Protein backbone atom coordinates (compact mmCIF):
# COMPACT_ATOMS: atom_id res chain seq x y z
CA UNK A 1 0.00 0.00 0.00
CA UNK A 2 2.44 2.56 -1.21
CA UNK A 3 -0.31 5.15 -1.47
CA UNK A 4 -1.04 5.51 2.20
CA UNK A 5 2.49 5.33 3.53
CA UNK A 6 4.98 7.02 1.20
CA UNK A 7 4.70 9.80 -1.34
CA UNK A 8 3.89 8.46 -4.76
CA UNK A 9 5.78 9.89 -7.74
CA UNK A 10 2.57 11.61 -8.79
CA UNK A 11 2.27 13.28 -5.41
CA UNK A 12 5.88 14.44 -5.61
CA UNK A 13 5.16 15.87 -9.03
CA UNK A 14 2.09 17.60 -7.67
CA UNK A 15 4.11 19.06 -4.83
CA UNK A 16 6.75 20.34 -7.19
CA UNK A 17 4.08 21.79 -9.48
CA UNK A 18 2.58 23.56 -6.49
CA UNK A 19 5.90 25.14 -5.52
CA UNK A 20 6.34 26.29 -9.08
CA UNK A 21 2.82 27.72 -9.08
CA UNK A 22 3.40 29.62 -5.86
CA UNK A 23 6.61 31.08 -7.27
CA UNK A 24 4.70 32.15 -10.37
CA UNK A 25 2.05 33.84 -8.21
CA UNK A 26 4.73 35.79 -6.32
CA UNK A 27 6.39 36.95 -9.54
CA UNK A 28 3.06 38.04 -10.99
CA UNK A 29 2.10 39.94 -7.85
CA UNK A 30 5.50 41.67 -7.91
CA UNK A 31 4.92 42.63 -11.55
CA UNK A 32 1.48 43.93 -10.59
CA UNK A 33 3.00 46.09 -7.86
CA UNK A 34 5.64 47.62 -10.13
CA UNK A 35 3.45 47.92 -13.23
CA UNK A 36 1.97 51.41 -12.62
CA UNK A 37 5.49 52.89 -12.72
CA UNK A 38 6.05 51.41 -16.15
CA UNK A 39 2.65 51.63 -17.82
CA UNK A 40 -0.23 54.07 -17.68
CA UNK A 41 -2.21 53.25 -14.49
CA UNK A 42 -5.66 53.94 -15.97
CA UNK A 43 -4.98 51.46 -18.76
CA UNK A 44 -3.78 48.88 -16.22
CA UNK A 45 -6.88 49.41 -14.11
CA UNK A 46 -9.06 48.88 -17.15
CA UNK A 47 -7.25 45.61 -17.85
CA UNK A 48 -7.65 44.48 -14.25
CA UNK A 49 -11.37 45.27 -14.17
CA UNK A 50 -11.99 43.34 -17.37
CA UNK A 51 -9.71 40.55 -16.20
CA UNK A 52 -11.86 40.17 -13.09
CA UNK A 53 -14.99 40.26 -15.24
CA UNK A 54 -13.56 37.53 -17.48
CA UNK A 55 -12.50 35.44 -14.45
CA UNK A 56 -16.07 35.63 -13.18
CA UNK A 57 -17.38 34.54 -16.55
CA UNK A 58 -14.81 31.74 -16.75
CA UNK A 59 -15.96 30.35 -13.41
CA UNK A 60 -19.32 29.74 -15.00
CA UNK A 61 -18.26 28.59 -18.49
CA UNK A 62 -14.98 26.88 -17.70
CA UNK A 63 -15.87 25.15 -14.46
CA UNK A 64 -19.64 24.77 -14.53
CA UNK A 65 -19.94 24.39 -18.30
CA UNK A 66 -22.65 27.05 -18.50
CA UNK A 67 -22.48 29.59 -21.33
CA UNK A 68 -24.13 32.82 -20.27
CA UNK A 69 -24.80 35.39 -22.94
CA UNK A 70 -26.02 37.99 -20.50
CA UNK A 71 -23.12 38.78 -18.23
CA UNK A 72 -23.12 42.43 -19.24
CA UNK A 73 -26.21 42.82 -17.05
CA UNK A 74 -24.20 42.03 -13.92
CA UNK A 75 -21.27 44.22 -14.88
CA UNK A 76 -23.64 47.11 -15.52
CA UNK A 77 -25.74 46.53 -12.43
CA UNK A 78 -22.65 46.62 -10.24
CA UNK A 79 -21.53 49.77 -12.01
CA UNK A 80 -24.84 51.66 -11.91
CA UNK A 81 -25.72 50.82 -8.31
CA UNK A 82 -22.28 51.82 -7.09
CA UNK A 83 -22.25 54.94 -9.28
CA UNK A 84 -25.71 56.02 -8.20
CA UNK A 85 -25.08 55.49 -4.49
CA UNK A 86 -21.71 57.23 -4.46
CA UNK A 87 -23.09 60.19 -6.45
CA UNK A 88 -26.22 60.55 -4.32
CA UNK A 89 -24.75 60.01 -0.87
CA UNK A 90 -21.48 61.90 -0.58
CA UNK A 91 -20.87 60.44 2.89
CA UNK A 92 -20.68 56.93 1.53
CA UNK A 93 -17.16 55.49 1.34
CA UNK A 94 -16.10 53.79 -1.92
CA UNK A 95 -15.68 50.29 -0.47
CA UNK A 96 -19.28 50.37 0.80
CA UNK A 97 -20.46 51.61 -2.58
CA UNK A 98 -18.67 48.76 -4.31
CA UNK A 99 -20.05 46.27 -1.82
CA UNK A 100 -23.59 47.50 -2.50
CA UNK A 101 -23.05 47.21 -6.27
CA UNK A 102 -21.73 43.68 -5.84
CA UNK A 103 -24.69 42.68 -3.67
CA UNK A 104 -27.10 44.06 -6.27
CA UNK A 105 -25.41 41.89 -8.90
CA UNK A 106 -25.66 38.87 -6.57
CA UNK A 107 -29.39 39.42 -6.16
CA UNK A 108 -29.87 39.84 -9.90
CA UNK A 109 -27.71 36.77 -10.47
CA UNK A 110 -29.90 34.68 -8.17
CA UNK A 111 -32.96 35.84 -10.09
CA UNK A 112 -31.45 35.22 -13.55
CA UNK A 113 -29.93 31.95 -12.44
CA UNK A 114 -33.13 30.58 -10.99
CA UNK A 115 -34.86 31.17 -14.31
CA UNK A 116 -32.04 30.17 -16.65
CA UNK A 117 -30.69 26.93 -15.14
CA UNK A 118 -33.95 25.18 -15.91
CA UNK A 119 -32.77 25.12 -19.50
CA UNK A 120 -29.61 23.67 -20.99
CA UNK A 121 -27.09 24.52 -23.67
CA UNK A 122 -28.16 27.06 -26.25
CA UNK A 123 -31.51 27.59 -24.50
CA UNK A 124 -29.72 28.54 -21.33
CA UNK A 125 -27.65 31.07 -23.29
CA UNK A 126 -30.79 32.48 -24.94
CA UNK A 127 -32.60 32.92 -21.62
CA UNK A 128 -29.64 34.81 -20.17
CA UNK A 129 -29.46 36.99 -23.28
CA UNK A 130 -33.17 37.78 -23.13
CA UNK A 131 -33.01 38.68 -19.45
CA UNK A 132 -29.94 40.86 -20.03
CA UNK A 133 -31.74 42.73 -22.81
CA UNK A 134 -34.61 43.31 -20.39
CA UNK A 135 -32.17 44.79 -17.91
CA UNK A 136 -30.64 46.92 -20.67
CA UNK A 137 -34.00 48.51 -21.45
CA UNK A 138 -34.68 49.05 -17.79
CA UNK A 139 -31.41 50.97 -17.56
CA UNK A 140 -32.27 53.01 -20.67
CA UNK A 141 -35.62 54.01 -19.17
CA UNK A 142 -34.78 54.42 -15.49
CA UNK A 143 -34.08 57.95 -14.30
CA UNK A 144 -31.35 56.89 -11.85
CA UNK A 145 -28.99 55.70 -14.62
CA UNK A 146 -29.04 58.93 -16.56
CA UNK A 147 -30.38 57.07 -19.60
CA UNK A 148 -28.30 57.58 -22.76
CA UNK A 149 -25.98 59.99 -20.96
CA UNK A 150 -24.99 57.63 -18.16
CA UNK A 151 -23.69 58.66 -14.77
CA UNK A 152 -20.79 61.10 -14.86
CA UNK A 153 -18.45 62.40 -12.24
CA UNK A 154 -18.91 59.59 -9.75
CA UNK A 155 -16.69 60.63 -6.83
CA UNK A 156 -13.87 58.23 -5.99
CA UNK A 157 -13.86 59.41 -2.39
CA UNK A 158 -11.54 58.12 0.27
CA UNK A 159 -11.10 54.43 1.08
CA UNK A 160 -12.51 53.69 4.55
CA UNK A 161 -12.81 57.49 4.77
CA UNK A 162 -9.03 57.64 5.21
CA UNK A 163 -7.08 57.09 2.00
CA UNK A 164 -7.97 59.38 -0.87
CA UNK A 165 -8.33 57.54 -4.16
CA UNK A 166 -8.09 60.71 -6.24
CA UNK A 167 -4.59 59.92 -7.44
CA UNK A 168 -4.43 57.21 -10.08
CA UNK A 169 -1.63 55.46 -8.24
CA UNK A 170 -3.66 55.02 -5.04
CA UNK A 171 -6.64 53.99 -7.12
CA UNK A 172 -4.49 51.46 -8.96
CA UNK A 173 -3.39 49.69 -5.81
CA UNK A 174 -6.96 49.54 -4.59
CA UNK A 175 -8.09 48.02 -7.91
CA UNK A 176 -5.18 45.60 -7.81
CA UNK A 177 -6.25 44.48 -4.32
CA UNK A 178 -9.87 44.05 -5.45
CA UNK A 179 -8.69 42.02 -8.43
CA UNK A 180 -6.52 39.78 -6.22
CA UNK A 181 -9.45 39.16 -3.87
CA UNK A 182 -11.71 38.30 -6.79
CA UNK A 183 -9.10 36.06 -8.37
CA UNK A 184 -8.49 34.32 -5.04
CA UNK A 185 -12.22 33.65 -4.66
CA UNK A 186 -12.35 32.03 -8.11
CA UNK A 187 -9.14 30.08 -7.46
CA UNK A 188 -10.44 28.80 -4.16
CA UNK A 189 -13.90 27.98 -5.48
CA UNK A 190 -12.35 25.91 -8.26
CA UNK A 191 -10.14 24.03 -5.78
CA UNK A 192 -12.76 23.46 -3.10
CA UNK A 193 -15.09 20.59 -2.23
CA UNK A 194 -17.70 22.59 -4.12
CA UNK A 195 -15.36 22.88 -7.11
CA UNK A 196 -15.03 19.11 -7.25
CA UNK A 197 -18.78 18.65 -7.50
CA UNK A 198 -19.01 21.44 -10.06
CA UNK A 199 -16.37 19.73 -12.21
CA UNK A 200 -18.23 16.44 -11.88
CA UNK A 201 -21.43 18.11 -13.07
CA UNK A 202 -19.61 19.70 -16.01
CA UNK A 203 -18.07 16.36 -16.97
CA UNK A 204 -21.19 14.22 -16.68
CA UNK A 205 -24.38 15.71 -15.33
CA UNK A 206 -26.56 12.54 -15.23
CA UNK A 207 -23.83 10.72 -13.35
CA UNK A 208 -23.59 13.53 -10.80
CA UNK A 209 -27.36 13.24 -10.34
CA UNK A 210 -27.07 9.51 -9.84
CA UNK A 211 -24.53 10.15 -7.09
CA UNK A 212 -27.19 12.06 -5.21
CA UNK A 213 -26.27 15.63 -6.10
CA UNK A 214 -28.98 18.18 -6.68
CA UNK A 215 -27.21 19.65 -9.69
CA UNK A 216 -29.49 22.66 -10.12
CA UNK A 217 -28.53 24.00 -6.71
CA UNK A 218 -24.83 23.70 -7.54
CA UNK A 219 -25.29 25.41 -10.88
CA UNK A 220 -27.27 28.20 -9.25
CA UNK A 221 -24.48 28.84 -6.76
CA UNK A 222 -21.96 29.00 -9.60
CA UNK A 223 -24.21 31.46 -11.41
CA UNK A 224 -24.61 33.67 -8.34
CA UNK A 225 -20.88 33.65 -7.57
CA UNK A 226 -20.09 34.52 -11.15
CA UNK A 227 -22.69 37.29 -11.24
CA UNK A 228 -21.42 38.74 -7.96
CA UNK A 229 -17.81 38.84 -9.18
CA UNK A 230 -18.93 40.40 -12.47
CA UNK A 231 -20.77 43.01 -10.40
CA UNK A 232 -17.64 43.62 -8.36
CA UNK A 233 -15.72 44.20 -11.59
CA UNK A 234 -18.37 46.63 -12.86
CA UNK A 235 -18.52 48.50 -9.56
CA UNK A 236 -14.75 48.89 -9.45
CA UNK A 237 -14.65 50.02 -13.07
CA UNK A 238 -17.22 52.73 -12.34
CA UNK A 239 -15.00 54.04 -9.60
CA UNK A 240 -11.93 54.04 -11.85
CA UNK A 241 -13.53 55.96 -14.71
CA UNK A 242 -15.98 57.82 -12.50
CA UNK A 243 -18.53 56.80 -15.06
CA UNK A 244 -21.29 54.25 -15.52
CA UNK A 245 -22.74 54.00 -19.01
CA UNK A 246 -24.95 51.87 -21.19
CA UNK A 247 -21.89 50.40 -22.94
CA UNK A 248 -21.49 48.07 -19.98
CA UNK A 249 -25.07 46.83 -20.25
CA UNK A 250 -25.05 46.30 -24.01
CA UNK A 251 -24.96 42.76 -25.37
CA UNK A 252 -21.67 43.62 -27.08
CA UNK A 253 -20.16 43.51 -23.63
CA UNK A 254 -21.53 40.00 -23.04
CA UNK A 255 -19.90 38.96 -26.30
CA UNK A 256 -16.62 40.66 -25.48
CA UNK A 257 -16.21 38.75 -22.24
CA UNK A 258 -16.77 35.48 -24.11
CA UNK A 259 -14.06 36.52 -26.56
CA UNK A 260 -11.63 37.40 -23.75
CA UNK A 261 -12.21 34.10 -21.99
CA UNK A 262 -11.95 31.92 -25.08
CA UNK A 263 -8.93 33.78 -26.43
CA UNK A 264 -7.07 33.50 -23.13
CA UNK A 265 -8.14 29.92 -22.43
CA UNK A 266 -11.43 28.80 -20.97
CA UNK A 267 -11.19 26.60 -17.88
CA UNK A 268 -7.71 27.86 -16.99
CA UNK A 269 -7.22 30.26 -14.10
CA UNK A 270 -4.97 32.71 -15.93
CA UNK A 271 -6.59 32.45 -19.35
CA UNK A 272 -9.23 35.12 -18.77
CA UNK A 273 -6.62 37.50 -17.35
CA UNK A 274 -4.41 37.11 -20.41
CA UNK A 275 -7.42 37.30 -22.72
CA UNK A 276 -8.63 40.52 -21.10
CA UNK A 277 -5.12 41.95 -21.36
CA UNK A 278 -4.89 41.16 -25.06
CA UNK A 279 -8.35 42.43 -25.96
CA UNK A 280 -8.11 45.67 -23.95
CA UNK A 281 -4.60 46.36 -25.31
CA UNK A 282 -5.76 45.82 -28.86
CA UNK A 283 -8.78 48.04 -28.38
CA UNK A 284 -6.66 50.81 -26.88
CA UNK A 285 -3.90 50.56 -29.47
CA UNK A 286 -6.24 50.30 -32.42
CA UNK A 287 -8.41 53.16 -31.22
CA UNK A 288 -5.38 55.45 -31.45
CA UNK A 289 -4.29 54.17 -34.86
CA UNK A 290 -5.83 54.80 -38.29
CA UNK A 291 -7.37 51.33 -38.01
CA UNK A 292 -9.69 52.67 -35.30
CA UNK A 293 -12.86 51.81 -37.19
CA UNK A 294 -11.69 48.26 -37.78
CA UNK A 295 -11.51 47.16 -34.15
CA UNK A 296 -14.53 44.86 -34.41
CA UNK A 297 -13.29 43.31 -37.65
CA UNK A 298 -9.83 42.65 -36.25
CA UNK A 299 -11.15 41.21 -33.01
CA UNK A 300 -13.60 39.11 -34.97
CA UNK A 301 -10.80 37.73 -37.14
CA UNK A 302 -8.74 36.88 -34.09
CA UNK A 303 -11.77 35.14 -32.60
CA UNK A 304 -12.27 33.04 -35.72
CA UNK A 305 -8.57 32.14 -35.81
CA UNK A 306 -8.71 31.21 -32.14
CA UNK A 307 -11.70 28.92 -32.60
CA UNK A 308 -10.22 27.32 -35.73
CA UNK A 309 -6.59 26.83 -34.80
CA UNK A 310 -5.95 27.16 -31.08
CA UNK A 311 -9.09 26.17 -29.30
CA UNK A 312 -7.72 25.97 -25.80
CA UNK A 313 -6.75 29.63 -25.98
CA UNK A 314 -3.38 31.22 -25.29
CA UNK A 315 -2.89 29.86 -21.77
CA UNK A 316 -4.43 26.51 -22.66
CA UNK A 317 -2.00 26.03 -25.54
CA UNK A 318 0.96 27.06 -23.37
CA UNK A 319 -0.12 24.54 -20.74
CA UNK A 320 -0.24 21.81 -23.38
CA UNK A 321 3.30 22.58 -24.49
CA UNK A 322 4.55 22.69 -20.90
CA UNK A 323 2.86 19.39 -20.10
CA UNK A 324 4.38 17.71 -23.14
CA UNK A 325 7.94 18.86 -22.52
CA UNK A 326 8.36 19.07 -18.78
CA UNK A 327 6.58 16.02 -17.45
Amino acid at each position, binding site marked *: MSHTTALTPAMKLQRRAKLRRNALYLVLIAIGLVAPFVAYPVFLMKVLCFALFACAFNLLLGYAGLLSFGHAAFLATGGYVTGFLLSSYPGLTPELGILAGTLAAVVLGALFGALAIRRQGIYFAMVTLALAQLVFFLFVQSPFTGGEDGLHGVPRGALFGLISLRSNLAMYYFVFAVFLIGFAIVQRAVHSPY*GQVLKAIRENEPRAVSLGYNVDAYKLLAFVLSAGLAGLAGATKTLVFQLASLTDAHWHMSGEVILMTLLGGVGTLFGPVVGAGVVVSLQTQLAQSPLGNWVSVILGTIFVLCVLSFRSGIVGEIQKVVKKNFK
Partner: protein
Amino acid sequence: MTQPFILETRGLTKEFRGFTAVDDVNLQVQEGHIHALIGPNGAGKTTVFNLLTKFLPPTRGEILYRGKPITGMKANEIARLGLVRSFQISAVFAHMTALENVRVALQRPLGTSFHFWKSEKSLAPLNARALALLDEVGLADYADVLTVEMPYGRKRALEVATTLALDPTMMLLDEPTQGMGAEDVDRIVELIRRVARGRTVLMVEHNLSVVSRLCDRITVLARGSVLAEGDYASVSADPRVREAYMGSEAAQEETHA
Protein backbone atom coordinates in the same frame (compact mmCIF):
# COMPACT_ATOMS: atom_id res chain seq x y z
CA MET B 1 -46.33 -9.32 6.89
CA THR B 2 -42.82 -8.22 6.12
CA GLN B 3 -42.12 -6.81 2.72
CA PRO B 4 -40.23 -9.44 0.72
CA PHE B 5 -39.44 -7.23 -2.24
CA ILE B 6 -36.89 -4.44 -2.17
CA LEU B 7 -38.14 -2.92 -5.41
CA GLU B 8 -41.52 -3.35 -6.94
CA THR B 9 -43.50 -1.76 -9.72
CA ARG B 10 -47.27 -1.82 -10.11
CA GLY B 11 -48.82 -1.18 -13.48
CA LEU B 12 -45.82 0.84 -14.62
CA THR B 13 -46.62 2.45 -17.96
CA LYS B 14 -44.82 4.96 -20.15
CA GLU B 15 -46.32 6.45 -23.25
CA PHE B 16 -44.49 8.66 -25.73
CA ARG B 17 -47.04 10.55 -27.83
CA GLY B 18 -49.36 7.63 -28.15
CA PHE B 19 -46.64 5.01 -28.46
CA THR B 20 -46.61 2.74 -25.43
CA ALA B 21 -42.97 1.93 -24.70
CA VAL B 22 -43.68 0.30 -21.35
CA ASP B 23 -47.06 -1.30 -20.83
CA ASP B 24 -48.37 -2.24 -17.41
CA VAL B 25 -45.16 -3.76 -16.07
CA ASN B 26 -45.31 -5.43 -12.67
CA LEU B 27 -41.76 -6.10 -11.61
CA GLN B 28 -40.66 -7.55 -8.30
CA VAL B 29 -37.06 -7.67 -7.23
CA GLN B 30 -36.21 -9.76 -4.20
CA GLU B 31 -33.66 -8.49 -1.74
CA GLY B 32 -30.21 -10.03 -2.24
CA HIS B 33 -30.90 -11.19 -5.77
CA ILE B 34 -29.08 -10.40 -8.96
CA HIS B 35 -32.04 -9.77 -11.18
CA ALA B 36 -31.74 -9.36 -14.93
CA LEU B 37 -34.01 -7.49 -17.28
CA ILE B 38 -33.62 -8.91 -20.77
CA GLY B 39 -35.48 -8.78 -24.02
CA PRO B 40 -35.01 -8.19 -27.73
CA ASN B 41 -34.16 -4.74 -29.07
CA GLY B 42 -36.89 -2.19 -28.51
CA ALA B 43 -38.50 -4.23 -25.74
CA GLY B 44 -38.47 -1.24 -23.40
CA LYS B 45 -35.68 -2.38 -21.08
CA THR B 46 -33.88 0.94 -21.02
CA THR B 47 -37.14 2.83 -20.63
CA VAL B 48 -38.06 0.70 -17.61
CA PHE B 49 -34.61 1.35 -16.28
CA ASN B 50 -34.94 5.10 -16.70
CA LEU B 51 -38.35 5.01 -15.04
CA LEU B 52 -36.98 3.13 -12.05
CA THR B 53 -34.10 5.55 -11.64
CA LYS B 54 -36.41 8.55 -12.07
CA PHE B 55 -34.64 9.82 -15.17
CA LEU B 56 -38.06 9.61 -16.84
CA PRO B 57 -41.45 10.25 -15.25
CA PRO B 58 -43.93 7.39 -15.69
CA THR B 59 -47.27 8.01 -17.38
CA ARG B 60 -49.05 5.68 -14.95
CA GLY B 61 -48.23 3.22 -12.26
CA GLU B 62 -46.29 3.07 -9.05
CA ILE B 63 -42.75 2.28 -7.98
CA LEU B 64 -42.18 1.01 -4.46
CA TYR B 65 -38.87 0.76 -2.66
CA ARG B 66 -39.05 -1.38 0.47
CA GLY B 67 -42.82 -1.01 0.27
CA LYS B 68 -42.79 2.78 0.17
CA PRO B 69 -43.79 4.67 -2.95
CA ILE B 70 -40.91 6.54 -4.61
CA THR B 71 -42.82 7.36 -7.78
CA GLY B 72 -42.74 11.12 -7.24
CA MET B 73 -39.15 11.42 -6.06
CA LYS B 74 -36.31 13.03 -7.99
CA ALA B 75 -33.36 11.14 -9.45
CA ASN B 76 -30.87 12.51 -6.94
CA GLU B 77 -33.18 11.77 -4.01
CA ILE B 78 -33.47 8.06 -4.70
CA ALA B 79 -29.69 7.89 -4.89
CA ARG B 80 -29.68 9.00 -1.27
CA LEU B 81 -32.02 6.13 -0.40
CA GLY B 82 -29.33 3.75 -1.59
CA LEU B 83 -30.62 3.08 -5.10
CA VAL B 84 -27.69 3.86 -7.37
CA ARG B 85 -27.61 3.44 -11.12
CA SER B 86 -24.87 3.06 -13.68
CA PHE B 87 -25.06 4.07 -17.34
CA GLN B 88 -24.87 2.29 -20.65
CA ILE B 89 -22.04 4.43 -21.96
CA SER B 90 -19.31 4.57 -19.40
CA ALA B 91 -20.17 7.44 -17.10
CA VAL B 92 -16.98 8.72 -15.59
CA PHE B 93 -15.75 12.23 -14.95
CA ALA B 94 -13.19 12.32 -17.75
CA HIS B 95 -11.03 15.25 -16.70
CA MET B 96 -10.69 14.19 -13.11
CA THR B 97 -8.32 11.53 -11.79
CA ALA B 98 -9.60 8.08 -10.84
CA LEU B 99 -9.18 9.01 -7.19
CA GLU B 100 -11.19 12.22 -7.63
CA ASN B 101 -13.91 10.29 -9.43
CA VAL B 102 -14.45 8.06 -6.44
CA ARG B 103 -13.92 10.82 -3.93
CA VAL B 104 -16.61 13.02 -5.39
CA ALA B 105 -19.04 10.18 -4.64
CA LEU B 106 -17.73 9.90 -1.09
CA GLN B 107 -17.79 13.58 -0.26
CA ARG B 108 -21.50 14.33 -0.11
CA PRO B 109 -22.01 12.99 3.43
CA LEU B 110 -19.33 15.42 4.67
CA GLY B 111 -21.87 18.17 4.11
CA THR B 112 -19.27 20.55 2.71
CA SER B 113 -20.14 20.16 -0.95
CA PHE B 114 -21.40 23.74 -1.18
CA HIS B 115 -18.38 25.15 0.69
CA PHE B 116 -16.64 27.04 -2.07
CA TRP B 117 -14.38 28.80 0.42
CA LYS B 118 -12.82 25.60 1.81
CA SER B 119 -9.67 24.03 0.44
CA GLU B 120 -9.70 20.82 -1.51
CA LYS B 121 -7.34 19.55 1.18
CA SER B 122 -10.35 19.21 3.46
CA LEU B 123 -11.23 16.19 1.32
CA ALA B 124 -7.91 14.44 1.99
CA PRO B 125 -9.33 12.28 4.81
CA LEU B 126 -11.45 10.57 2.16
CA ASN B 127 -8.43 9.55 0.07
CA ALA B 128 -7.74 6.36 2.00
CA ARG B 129 -11.29 5.12 1.54
CA ALA B 130 -11.22 6.12 -2.13
CA LEU B 131 -7.97 4.21 -2.63
CA ALA B 132 -9.39 1.16 -0.91
CA LEU B 133 -12.34 1.24 -3.29
CA LEU B 134 -10.04 1.59 -6.29
CA ASP B 135 -8.03 -1.33 -4.97
CA GLU B 136 -11.19 -3.38 -4.68
CA VAL B 137 -11.81 -3.08 -8.44
CA GLY B 138 -8.13 -3.50 -9.30
CA LEU B 139 -7.43 0.15 -10.09
CA ALA B 140 -5.05 1.13 -7.28
CA ASP B 141 -2.32 1.87 -9.82
CA TYR B 142 -4.58 4.26 -11.69
CA ALA B 143 -5.34 6.54 -8.74
CA ASP B 144 -3.58 9.60 -10.14
CA VAL B 145 -4.35 8.96 -13.78
CA LEU B 146 -6.78 11.23 -15.56
CA THR B 147 -9.79 9.10 -16.40
CA VAL B 148 -9.80 10.21 -20.02
CA GLU B 149 -6.48 8.41 -20.44
CA MET B 150 -7.74 5.05 -19.10
CA PRO B 151 -8.75 2.07 -21.30
CA TYR B 152 -12.46 1.41 -21.70
CA GLY B 153 -12.68 -1.67 -19.49
CA ARG B 154 -10.92 0.18 -16.69
CA LYS B 155 -13.35 3.05 -16.97
CA ARG B 156 -16.21 0.65 -16.39
CA ALA B 157 -14.44 -0.74 -13.37
CA LEU B 158 -13.95 2.80 -12.11
CA GLU B 159 -17.65 3.35 -12.50
CA VAL B 160 -18.32 0.38 -10.27
CA ALA B 161 -15.92 1.76 -7.66
CA THR B 162 -17.69 5.12 -7.80
CA THR B 163 -21.05 3.43 -7.36
CA LEU B 164 -19.72 1.37 -4.46
CA ALA B 165 -18.54 4.55 -2.79
CA LEU B 166 -22.17 5.34 -2.03
CA ASP B 167 -22.51 1.95 -0.33
CA PRO B 168 -25.76 1.32 -2.19
CA THR B 169 -28.29 -1.21 -0.95
CA MET B 170 -29.35 -1.72 -4.52
CA MET B 171 -27.38 -1.22 -7.72
CA LEU B 172 -29.05 -0.70 -11.05
CA LEU B 173 -26.65 -1.54 -13.87
CA ASP B 174 -27.46 -0.55 -17.43
CA GLU B 175 -25.73 -3.05 -19.76
CA PRO B 176 -22.52 -3.27 -17.76
CA THR B 177 -20.66 -5.35 -20.37
CA GLN B 178 -21.75 -3.41 -23.43
CA GLY B 179 -18.99 -2.77 -25.95
CA MET B 180 -16.42 -4.94 -24.16
CA GLY B 181 -14.00 -7.59 -25.32
CA ALA B 182 -14.31 -11.12 -23.91
CA GLU B 183 -11.52 -10.63 -21.39
CA ASP B 184 -13.04 -7.47 -19.99
CA VAL B 185 -16.45 -9.13 -19.84
CA ASP B 186 -15.06 -11.89 -17.62
CA ARG B 187 -13.45 -9.36 -15.34
CA ILE B 188 -16.66 -7.33 -15.00
CA VAL B 189 -18.74 -10.47 -14.37
CA GLU B 190 -16.41 -11.42 -11.54
CA LEU B 191 -16.51 -7.88 -10.24
CA ILE B 192 -20.31 -7.76 -10.25
CA ARG B 193 -20.48 -11.13 -8.51
CA ARG B 194 -18.12 -9.88 -5.85
CA VAL B 195 -19.73 -6.50 -5.19
CA ALA B 196 -23.24 -7.97 -5.28
CA ARG B 197 -22.64 -9.78 -2.02
CA GLY B 198 -24.93 -8.27 0.57
CA ARG B 199 -26.63 -6.09 -2.05
CA THR B 200 -29.38 -6.35 -4.58
CA VAL B 201 -28.60 -5.86 -8.26
CA LEU B 202 -30.98 -5.18 -11.10
CA MET B 203 -29.28 -5.20 -14.46
CA VAL B 204 -30.25 -4.70 -18.06
CA GLU B 205 -28.10 -7.01 -20.12
CA HIS B 206 -27.87 -8.15 -23.72
CA ASN B 207 -25.20 -10.78 -23.24
CA LEU B 208 -27.10 -13.96 -22.30
CA SER B 209 -23.99 -15.81 -21.18
CA VAL B 210 -23.41 -13.07 -18.61
CA VAL B 211 -27.01 -13.38 -17.47
CA SER B 212 -26.80 -17.16 -17.18
CA ARG B 213 -23.64 -16.94 -15.11
CA LEU B 214 -24.74 -14.19 -12.77
CA CYS B 215 -28.43 -13.88 -12.31
CA ASP B 216 -30.81 -15.46 -9.81
CA ARG B 217 -33.89 -14.27 -11.52
CA ILE B 218 -34.72 -13.01 -14.98
CA THR B 219 -37.55 -10.92 -16.30
CA VAL B 220 -38.06 -11.00 -20.05
CA LEU B 221 -39.60 -7.96 -21.65
CA ALA B 222 -41.09 -7.90 -25.12
CA ARG B 223 -42.90 -4.97 -26.71
CA GLY B 224 -43.07 -3.16 -23.42
CA SER B 225 -44.68 -5.93 -21.36
CA VAL B 226 -43.40 -8.74 -19.20
CA LEU B 227 -43.26 -11.90 -21.28
CA ALA B 228 -41.84 -14.32 -18.74
CA GLU B 229 -40.12 -14.42 -15.41
CA GLY B 230 -38.10 -17.06 -13.58
CA ASP B 231 -34.59 -18.48 -13.28
CA TYR B 232 -32.39 -18.91 -16.32
CA ALA B 233 -33.34 -22.54 -16.95
CA SER B 234 -37.06 -21.99 -16.88
CA VAL B 235 -36.93 -18.74 -18.84
CA SER B 236 -34.68 -20.14 -21.53
CA ALA B 237 -36.97 -23.15 -21.88
CA ASP B 238 -40.07 -20.99 -22.27
CA PRO B 239 -41.30 -21.29 -25.88
CA ARG B 240 -42.59 -17.72 -25.90
CA VAL B 241 -39.18 -16.40 -24.95
CA ARG B 242 -37.56 -18.57 -27.59
CA GLU B 243 -39.96 -17.22 -30.11
CA ALA B 244 -39.37 -13.61 -29.12
CA TYR B 245 -35.62 -14.05 -29.38
CA MET B 246 -35.20 -16.77 -31.99
CA GLY B 247 -38.18 -15.63 -33.99
CA SER B 248 -36.67 -12.24 -34.52
CA GLU B 249 -33.23 -13.75 -35.11
CA ALA B 250 -34.63 -16.29 -37.56
CA ALA B 251 -36.43 -13.50 -39.35
CA GLN B 252 -33.21 -11.53 -39.48
CA GLU B 253 -31.36 -14.48 -40.91
CA GLU B 254 -33.98 -14.89 -43.56
CA THR B 255 -33.64 -11.32 -44.66
CA HIS B 256 -29.86 -11.68 -44.72
CA ALA B 257 -30.09 -14.78 -46.89
